[in-house]
């Protein structure tokens, strides 16, 4: 799995280079802010930084460019009534695929051919694993694209929110399913022709596809603290501009345009990551720097320190996330090797799974167990804990920073709201306690009254009860008298 290993090592290295570069530039930038040279130095620094970033990305096997193309394709693919059109499209596609599949099958018939020359030609192609993969990827592309395209960033518009969410979940699940299919289809084909072995698999496995599969399976986007922090940052900066009025309109427009452009690319892999850092840096300059001039001198230093802190937190978070993802990717790659070896062995004996869904089930089960084992390790648990902490610290620091910016404007700050909530909570608690005490007093009083009433009633009852006795006694007396009279 040498090519996969190199891929991940390159990937981690690229991330590292990018964040280091970003840190260095951010620090320089902040020094310049403090020195009041931002306007003259900013552009120059940005260009230099951008150049470095581009070099980093170029060294990364063109993966980012590929993702960028996909992003563009998806954004351009926006349609009204998307899912209805998709449904019609799918119905037609079924028959088209059946024909296409037949042609695909025929095109590879050389592997099974009785013609030794055809077979040899195909076998030579087979030996060139990369070309083989490429052939298959191209062949599958038209088919899988047909299925994937409709599941772009669109959201269905069903009456039920749960149905909408489910459709979204189907979309994600389907993308993973297709990624797995793309990855393994060459293996299946090779197995069909009994030329497959696990070493061939290692050459065939496309690491870029594989990484995309893992990203989709684990929703790294959802885990990504940078994305969450960025969202928060965006909200805060937007709120700040909105409160600043007309003088900030120009800056706000530029910020908003940039955010919208950037947001359209959020769900992607490398492109997302690099764009993320680039935009944070860029937005940092364009959106926040003008307000240094508005800030009293005493606060500027504290603000810059906070920004430094925030930059460092972003970088630390990016590095931790890269490490966590690396753990997942490498674990997954090992599992796939195992699956390939098992598959090769079964294929050799003619016992391999006969349908892709059965293969998918087996793949899920093996991966599920292996990843649970990985998640149980101290290394994963600690990394995850550190990421969550960094995410929380980014939030806290961002809040502080925004409060510093907004402190001099007539807006209610988050900390002030928190104070209000706290006071409200404490007062309500006091009222509640007093209410309980009051209820207890009322209850005691009622109980006391009831007791008093009961005592009076008892006394009265004793008196009343005594009367008949007296009566009886008097009756007795009367009777006695009467008797004596008799």
């Amino acid at each position: 799995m040498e090519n996969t290993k190199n891929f991940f090592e390159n990937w981690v290295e690229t991330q590292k280079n990018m964040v280091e570069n970003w840190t260095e530039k951010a620090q320089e930038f902040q020094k310049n802010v403090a020195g009041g040279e931002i306007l003259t130095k900013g552009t120059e620094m940005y260009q230099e930084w951008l150049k470095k970033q581009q070099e980093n990305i170029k060294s990364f096997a063109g993966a980012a460019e590929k993702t960028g193309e996909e992003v563009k394709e998806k954004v351009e693919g926006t349609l009204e009534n998307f899912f209805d059109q998709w449904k019609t499209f799918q119905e037609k596609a079924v028959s088209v695929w059946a024909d296409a599949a037949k042609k695909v099958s025929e095109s590879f018939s050389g592997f099974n051919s009785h013609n030794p020359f055809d077979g040899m030609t195909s076998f030579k192609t087979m030996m060139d694993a990369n070309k083989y993969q490429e052939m298959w990827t191209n062949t599958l592309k038209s088919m899988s694209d047909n299925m994937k395209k409709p599941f772009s960033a669109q959201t269905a518009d069903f009456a039920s929110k749960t149905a909408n969410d489910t459709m979204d979940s189907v979309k994600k699940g389907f993308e993973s399913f297709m990624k797995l299919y793309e990855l393994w289809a060459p293996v299946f084909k090779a197995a069909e022709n009994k030329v497959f072995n696990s070493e061939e698999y290692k050459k065939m496995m496309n690491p870029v596809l594989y990484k995309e599969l893992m990203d989709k399976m684990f929703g790294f986007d959802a885990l990504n603290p940078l994305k969450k922090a960025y969202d928060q940052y965006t909200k805060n900066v937007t709120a700040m501009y909105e409160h600043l009025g007309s003088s900030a309109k120009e800056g706000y427009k530029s910020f908003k345009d940039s955010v919208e452009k950037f947001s359209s690319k959020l769900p992607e892999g490398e492109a997302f990551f690099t764009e993320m850092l680039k935009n944070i840096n860029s937005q940092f300059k364009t959106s926040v720097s003008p307000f240094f001039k508005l800030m009293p001198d005493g606060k500027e230093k504290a603000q810059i320190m906070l920004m430094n802190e925030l930059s460092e937190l972003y970088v630390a978070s990016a590095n931790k996330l890269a490490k966590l993802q690396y753990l997942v990717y490498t674990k997954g790659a090992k599992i796939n090797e195992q699956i390939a070896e098992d598959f090769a062995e079964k294929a050799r004996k003619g016992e391999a799974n006969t349908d892709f869904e059965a293969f998918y089930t087996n793949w899920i089960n093996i991966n599920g167990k292996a990843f649970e084992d990985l998640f149980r390790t101290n290394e994963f648990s600690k990394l995850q804990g550190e990421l969550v902490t960094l995410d929380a610290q980014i939030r806290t620091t961002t809040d502080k920073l925004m409060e510093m910016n907004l402190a001099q404007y007539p807006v209610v700050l988050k900390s002030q709201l928190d104070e209000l909530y706290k006071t409200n909570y404490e007062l309500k608690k006091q009222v509640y306690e007093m209410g309980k005490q009051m209820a207890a007093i009322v209850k005691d009083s009622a109980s006391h009254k009831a007791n008093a009433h009961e005592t009076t009633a008892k006394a009265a009852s004793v008196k009343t009860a005594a009367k008949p006795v007296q009566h009886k006694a008097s009756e007795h007396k009367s009777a006695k008298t009467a008797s004596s009279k008799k």
Partner: protein
Amino acid sequence: MAVETKDLAEEMAEVSEKLVKGYENLKNAGEILVAQTPKTEVWKRDKVTLYHYTRDTKPTIKTPVLISYALVNRQDMMDLQPDRSLVKNLLNLGLDVYMMDWGYPGPAEKYLTLDDYVNGYLNDAVDMIREEQGVDAISLMGVCQGGTFSAIYAAIYPEKIKNLITIVTPIDFATNDGLLFKWAKDMDIDALVDGYGTVPGEFLNTGFALLKPMMQASKFQNLLNIMDDEGKLMNYLRMEKWINDSPNQAGECYRQFMKDLYQHNKLAKGQLVVGEHKVNLKNITMPLLNIYASEDHLVPPASTTPLNDYVGSKDKELYKFPGGHIGVFVGSRTQKELGPAIEKWLAARDK
């Protein structure tokens, strides 16, 4: 060798056909309704509500039962749909049932503590039922985290609880059998609560999803096979609705629960303090029915079963339910076995 390219392509075509049918069914799905058993609001304070389920007949078990669900997710799981409702089942078996609804904490509820939940809301609800029903003590049924609350409550106010039933309830947090138990020990809870204030339900759901790493993939596969069956799809959608309906957590309560219980296991050690009360599980002397799920990946048996060793009750029973955490409430076995087992246990102690 049966693997053929054409077969694979045909399989993909079949997948597509299923998706098309499923799409139609999803499009036609109306509002997804859960928790439809009739009930009346009988008490409310802040965002917490107490419901009393409606009965057409007099209960055959006279001691009323209060169900205290977890703060995580919603109590609707107990009444997901008419044929998968433990609540409805218990009503049919003759119980008089009340339910706590903890509501949806917002930023203003970030300061609510464990003390507020146990000595405040839960205690008020218990008192309200005692008063309404004219009884000294009620039966308390706690589920998951709501079971932990119930055990704490029963230890503080043993005189108000006639019977205690705990279902998949974490008590001993020293175990690392469940991933949550392990991960929680590596979390900086203070940083988390300070950062979020009110901890988002989405954050918790992300963690739950990772407990079964291939869940998304297997869910897709299962969904694919049922999407064209309207009835099964509706069952699936109700469950999805429940999963995604995840309230935020009041920050201070979350802080104490995670630090004192998950990280320091203070309840099992007898060191937990809630408000002015030190919680001693030995004070639980009433009859105890402790129900646990043998395959529970959220709250492993190693955390639930020790309760029977910690309490002071002489009348105590451990009930093993074969299945997972959620299966306890919605599995067909629940309706056939668990409901009647609870009724039988309570009936024997309803004198």
